């Protein structure tokens, strides 16, 4: 079964890198350019996992997680935060918002694939 992943990041480079890593591992990736787009994309299709940045225009990563968790549909999809931030306060806030995990950029392709497979129940 092909895992479907939604990647939300305002950086084109990071979006492409995530796409490259996951698609190389046989996953299917949809990208969104900011939080608002991410929430819209999430509502438009079923995903096995979501990867989101924190610092984004319009709606930040915490907002993305909160909106996904409050949606009646797919509210239990794993949501991974992928960010350069590494502060505990932010991590706690992400957890309280409903994040499933926290990944720090830069990332290794194989490790990202492992983590996504893990949280998405492979």
């Amino acid at each position, binding site marked *: 079964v092909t895992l479907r992943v939604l990647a939300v990041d305002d950086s084109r480079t990071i979006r492409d890198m995530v796409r490259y890593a996951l698609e190389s591992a046989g996953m299917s990736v949809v990208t969104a350019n900011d939080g608002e787009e991410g929430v819209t994309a999430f509502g438009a299709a079923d995903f096995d996992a979501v990867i989101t940045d924190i610092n984004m225009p319009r709606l930040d990563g915490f907002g993305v997680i909160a909106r996904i968790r409050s949606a009646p549909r797919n509210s*239990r999809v794993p949501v991974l935060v992928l960010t350069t931030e590494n502060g505990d306060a932010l991590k706690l806030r992400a*957890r309280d918002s409903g994040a499933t995990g926290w990944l720090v950029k*830069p*990332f290794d392709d194989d*490790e990202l694939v*492992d*983590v996504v497979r*893990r949280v*998405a129940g492979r």
Partner: protein
Amino acid sequence: MSRDALRDTFFCECEDLLDALHSGLATLADGTGDGETVNALFRAVHSIKGAAGAFGLNDLVRFAHRYETVLDALRAGRLEAGDDAVRILLRAADTLADLVAASQAGTDPEAPVEPVLVALQALLGADARPEDAEPAFEFVPLALSPVAVDPVALGPSDVGATLGIRFRPHAGFYRNGHDPLSYIAALEDLGDARVSCDTSGLPPLDGYDVDGSFLVWSVELSTTRTAAEIGEVFAFAEGLCELEISSGHDRCPTLPEPPRPAAGPAAAPQAIPDPVPSPTAPAPVAAPRTRQQPAAAARPTLRVDIDRIDKLVNTVGELIINQAALAERLSDLGLTLPTDLLSDLDDYRLLARDIQEAVMGIRAQPVKSLFQRMSRIVRETAEATGKDVRLITTGEETEVDKTVIEHLADPLTHMIRNAVDHGIEIAAQRRAAGKPERGTVRLSAEHQSGSVIIRIADDGAGLDRARILETAIRKGLLPPGAEPSDSDIDHLLFAPGFSTAAAVTDLSGRGVGMDVVKTAITALGGRVGIESRPGNGSTFSIVLPLTLAVLDGMVVSVAGQTMVVPISCIVETIRPERGSLKRIGRNNHVLLIRGTFVPVIDLAQRLGHPRPAFDPSASVILLVRSISGALAAMAVERISDHRQVVIKSLEENYGRIPGISAATILGDGRIALIVDPETLAAGGGVALPDDKEKTRVEHV
């Protein structure tokens, strides 16, 4: 997609982010910025940092990190956006751009980075904290309550030992998207697992809470791993479940062992949180931003290889030619065509024109990026000359062909440096002249009747005409005693070998004069002019074609050949009266136009079509103005048409031909040469453009 393609994407994105950074800083400098401006600045630098790390660009990451820390202090209100702070932020943006460029080229940055890092650090002042290196990839669990772990209980287990694992998720475990199955699967990877599920906690169906958590799993795991390693599996879910790992018969509630550098994400529960804040973590982000930021909501774009676009431009050119040919053939047939066919043909023509314009639009880019680079030039030149100068730009959205923008950077840089270095006076002089101490350079772009006009205006002292004239005479550019008009004197600046600066300065006097600027602009099919107001400054104007692919031309006959003269340089067309022509020497003529004598150029003779007798009075005269502002009367036999022609370069196959700039294919399939009035007016590209200038001065 490859790693290289990702790298390309990164540098493309950096360009956009640096643009956004510069725009935001300009807003901040104007004092019109708000909270969202600073947020956007932060995000731009943050994005560069984030992606740069992925490519191991450590210098870039290090600088971006410091920069970001300052912007974070600014957005948290710990730092004021005063003049000094903004100046340093602007300088840091330049350095960041340098670092990006250096990273891309694999070279060292243009200017030293360290002083800027120091300046940024100084801004942070008391807010400064020591910085860590960027963390390597690590999976950091969402850990809350640290639990003391008994090291004895977690000692290495014996080979083949059996561990008992009891795992009871809380409701929050499911809410956060965790799945017990994935944890059990992870345990199965570590050894031989016997799994059982305790369903006794399940309530009866009629009172069932779908969001509740009622199941408890027990796993007996035969493994060589330690209890700590097993605990790491649950790092994702820490705080969201109860976990007991017991070794042998000693049941010992435990949680994963604290920090230990781990090999992979699945095995890397890093740090139970320590009260010491992470130095890399900015202050908590404010409440989710709901304000719309127009610039951030970028329209989707598609990046296309430039060769493909050029091929399209070329093919569309052929289409236009083909359309013209078809129309001409049909009209040659002399048939009375049905109205609907004529209307279809007309649609074809209009559609072809629309496609052409759309395709040209693809190559067009706003001059914004170019203008932003100039603000740096102004800052650097002002700093080096000890002047206070601001740059005001307008018309940044004006679009110009990409190639034009690329080739405009050098000449524009030179002109901007000149404006600051030579144009703007030092503060004392400005004060004495009753002007504000702070000088102003205005850079503007606008579309005007099929051309783009870029103006560089300073509010300095204007040109010193007496000195220019003296220099020109001394250098033999003008005969002694010449009395050219003010405008002619000003245009002497563009003459080759002319340099005004009495003392050659480090900045603008690097042995290149305005003639190099003129050559560069001319090569783009453009023209440059100057207007100086003594005491009030000078304005340089660059007139450029909108596109390099199509030209508005006058189709003329010369010695039986069809040729094209660019409309842009034709001032007027004249049928000369007999009395207005004067013969000078054996074969030369001048034309008297409104009291001024203008040399007549016999186009046929200049292009090597000898004829027994040339009678200028039987010719049509095209009055052309060269870039230097000088007039010349170009004699042709007949004007046959005015049309847009597609430029086909000859240079690649034939080299540069004096008097001819390119060729085109006419509607009937014949090739017509496009004449280059610049070199023709200058005597076939041999003599200096100022030759005719001398002629004029002598005969008036």
